[in-house]
C-alpha cells in the first residue's frame, strides 16, 4: 500500500513538469515578442527592455526555464500588469468564493447524480432509465451560460425569489446569505457535472450488475436493495470517483463562466478580467494553479482507491 501511494505520488511530478514546460514554452515560442505580450500594448521601449532584463529573455532557453521554475517553486508567480500586485496575492483574495461555490456544487452533484444513476441502471430500459439518460444528454449539451440565464429568468426575474447577481462570503456574512446567492450559480455549475456522474454511475453499475458475484448475491437470497447498495455500488465506485476527478476540469470551465454570469468575485472572474486586459502573468498563474489542483485532486482520488479496493491495498 505504501509503495502504491508513493508510486502514485511520484507519478504526479512529471505531469506537473509537463504542465510547467508547456506554459513556459507557450509564451516563449509564440510568434511575437514575449516582452511585448507581457508588457501589454501600451509599453514604452524602456519598459520592454526592463522586462527583457527581469525575465532574462536574452539568456538561453533552458536557463530561462530553470530560473522561471525556481521562482514558481518559491511561490513567485510574477506580477499582474493591471494592478501591479503579485499574482499570488490576487489569487488568494479570490480563492474563497470559488472554493465555496465548487464544494457546494460537487456535493449537490454527487447527492443528486449517484442515486439517479443507480436507479437508472437498476430499472435498465424502463421509463425512468430513459428519463435519466435524456436529462443527462440534455445536461451536457445545453451550455452552462444558457442554463444560467434560464435559471435567472425563472427564479430571479419572473419569480423574484433569488438575487439576480452578486455574492456573499460565507466567512463574512454567514451561511444564509451565502446560500441565497450561491444556490443558482451552484445549480448552473452542477448541471453538467450531474449529467456526467449520473451517466457514469449508470454505465458502471450496469457493468457490475452483469458480474458473477451479483448472481451469487441473488442466489444467496439477497434483496434488490442489498444487491444494489451493498454489493454493486461499491464495486462501481472506482469509475465514478474517476469521473468526479477528471470532471473537475469541466468544473473549472464552469466556474469561469458562472462567475462571469453571476458577477462573483472569484478566480473565474479574475480569469475573465485577465483575458479582457490581456494580463498574461495572471492567466499563466491561473493555469498553473488550476492544473496543480487538478493533479492533486486526481492524486487524492487515486489514493482513495486504495481504501476502496483491497486488491490495491495489498499490492
Amino acid at each position, binding site marked *: 500500500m505504501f509503495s502504491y501511494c508513493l508510486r502514485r505520488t511520484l507519478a504526479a511530478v*512529471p*505531469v*506537473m*513538469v*509537463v*504542465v510547467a*514546460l*508547456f*506554459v513556459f514554452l*507557450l*509564451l516563449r515560442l*509564440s510568434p*511575437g515578442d514575449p516582452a511585448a*505580450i507581457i508588457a501589454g500594448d501600451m509599453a514604452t521601449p524602456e519598459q520592454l527592455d526592463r522586462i527583457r532584463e527581469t525575465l532574462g529573455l536574452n539568456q538561453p532557453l533552458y536557463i530561462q526555464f530553470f530560473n522561471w521554475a525556481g521562482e514558481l517553486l518559491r511561490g513567485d508567480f510574477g506580477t499582474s500588469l493591471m494592478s501591479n500586485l503579485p499574482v499570488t496575492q490576487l489569487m488568494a483574495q479570490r480563492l474563497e468564493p470559488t472554493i465555496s461555490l465548487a464544494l457546494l456544487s460537487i456535493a449537490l452533484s454527487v447527492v443528486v447524480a449517484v442515486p439517479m444513476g443507480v436507479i437508472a441502471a437498476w430499472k435498465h430500459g424502463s421509463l425512468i432509465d430513459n428519463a435519466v439518460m*435524456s436529462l443527462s*444528454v*440534455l445536461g*451536457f*449539451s*445545453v*451550455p*452552462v*451560460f*444558457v442554463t444560467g*440565464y434560464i435559471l435567472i*429568468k425563472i427564479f430571479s*426575474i419572473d419569480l423574484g425569489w433569488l438575487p439576480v447577481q452578486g455574492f456573499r462570503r460565507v466567512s463574512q456574512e454567514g451561511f444564509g446569505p451565502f446560500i441565497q446567492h450561491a444556490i443558482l450559480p451552484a445549480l448552473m455549475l452542477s448541471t*453538467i457535472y450531474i*449529467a*456526467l456522474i449520473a*451517466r*457514469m454511475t449508470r*454505465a*458502471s453499475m*450496469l*457493468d457490475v450488475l452483469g458480474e458473477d458475484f451479483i448472481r451469487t448475491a441473488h442466489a444467496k437470497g439477497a434483496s434488490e436493495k442489498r444487491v444494489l447498495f451493498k454489493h454493486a455500488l461499491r464495486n462501481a465506485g472506482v*469509475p465514478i470517483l474517476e469521473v468526479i476527478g*477528471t470532471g473537475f*476540469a*469541466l468544473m*473549472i*470551465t464552469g466556474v*469561469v*463562466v458562472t462567475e*462571469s*454570469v453571476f458577477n462573483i468575485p472569484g478566480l473565474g472572474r479574475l*480569469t*475573465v478580467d485577465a*483575458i*479582457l486586459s*490581456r494580463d*498574461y502573468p495572471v*492567466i*499563466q498563474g*491561473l*493555469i498553473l494553479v*488550476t*492544473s496543480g489542483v*487538478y*493533479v492533486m485532486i486526481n492524486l487524492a482520488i487515486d489514493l482513495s482507491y486504495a481504501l476502496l479496493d483491497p486488491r490495491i491495498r495489498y499490492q
Partner: protein
Amino acid sequence: MSLSSPHASPDVSAAIPPRRRLRLWPRQRPGWAVIVAAICLALIVIIAILAPWLAPHDPLGMSPADRLKPPSDTYWLGSDAYGRDLLSRVLYGARVSLIVGLGSALISVVVGLPLGILAGFFRSLDAVIMRVMDGLMAIPSVLLAIAIVSLISANLWTVMAAITIPEIPRIVRLVRSVVLSAREEPYVEAAVSLGSSLPTVMWRHLMPNTLAPLIVMSTYICASAILTEAILSFLGAGLGTETPTWGNIMAEGRTYFLIKPSLIFWPGIALSVCILSINLLGDAARDRLDPRLQKRGGAQ
C-alpha cells in the same frame, strides 16, 4: 468450456449458415429522438451553407436607428444593440460553429490517431507520449485556449487550434487503449507468426479496431469543440466581437438581458439544439458500434 456454437453438428460442412455480409449496422430502427436529432443537424448544416441566401439582412450591417427593436416584419427576431438583424446573425452563427466543430474533430483524429498507435505499440514511446498527454489533460481546456488566444491574435485558425489541442489527449488515450487490448488478440499474434511486417499488422489488424470508437469519440469532440468556441466567444476570448458567432451574440446580449432576453435565448437555443443533436447521434453511434465505449463517453 462451452464456446462452440449450438450448431456444431457432426457433419461439419453441412452446418455453414447462408452467405451474409459482416453487418456493422444492425437492422434495427433508430429511435425517434435520433431521427429528430439527425433532421435538426441536417437543417443546421443547410442553414450554414445557405446562410447568405437565407438571411434577410447583412449580419454586419448596423443601423443605429433600429437599436433593440422587438420582432417585426423587417426584423423577424428583432435587432441587437447596434441595430443588426438578430435572425441573420444567428443564421450566420451556424457557420463558425460547424467549421470549428468539424475542424477540431478532424484535426484531433489526424494528430491523435498516429500518436495513439505509436504509444500503444512501442513501450519506449509510450512513456513519453502519455506523460505529455497527461500534462495536456491536466490543463483545463478553456484556460489553455484562453492562454493561446491571448498570446496569438484570435482568428479562425488560432481559435480552432486552441480548442483542438486540449482534445487531442482524448483521442490518443482512446486509440492507445484499443491498440493495447487488440495486440493481445490471438489473431494479431497469428499475423506476426505468418511473417506480416509491422506496418501490415498495424494497418490491417490493429487500425480497424480503432475505427468504431474513433467515429463515436470524434462526434463527442465535435460537440465539445462547438461548446468551447461558444464559451470563448462568450468570455471575449474568441473571434472578434463583430463576427456573428452564437457566443458573441450572447456576450453582447448580456448587457441587455433584463430588457431583451431574446438576444441570449435565440442563439442559446440554436447552440443547444446543435450540440444536443450531435451528442444524440454520437450516443446512437456508440450504442451500435461500440457498446464498451459507454464508460468513456460524454461531451467534453
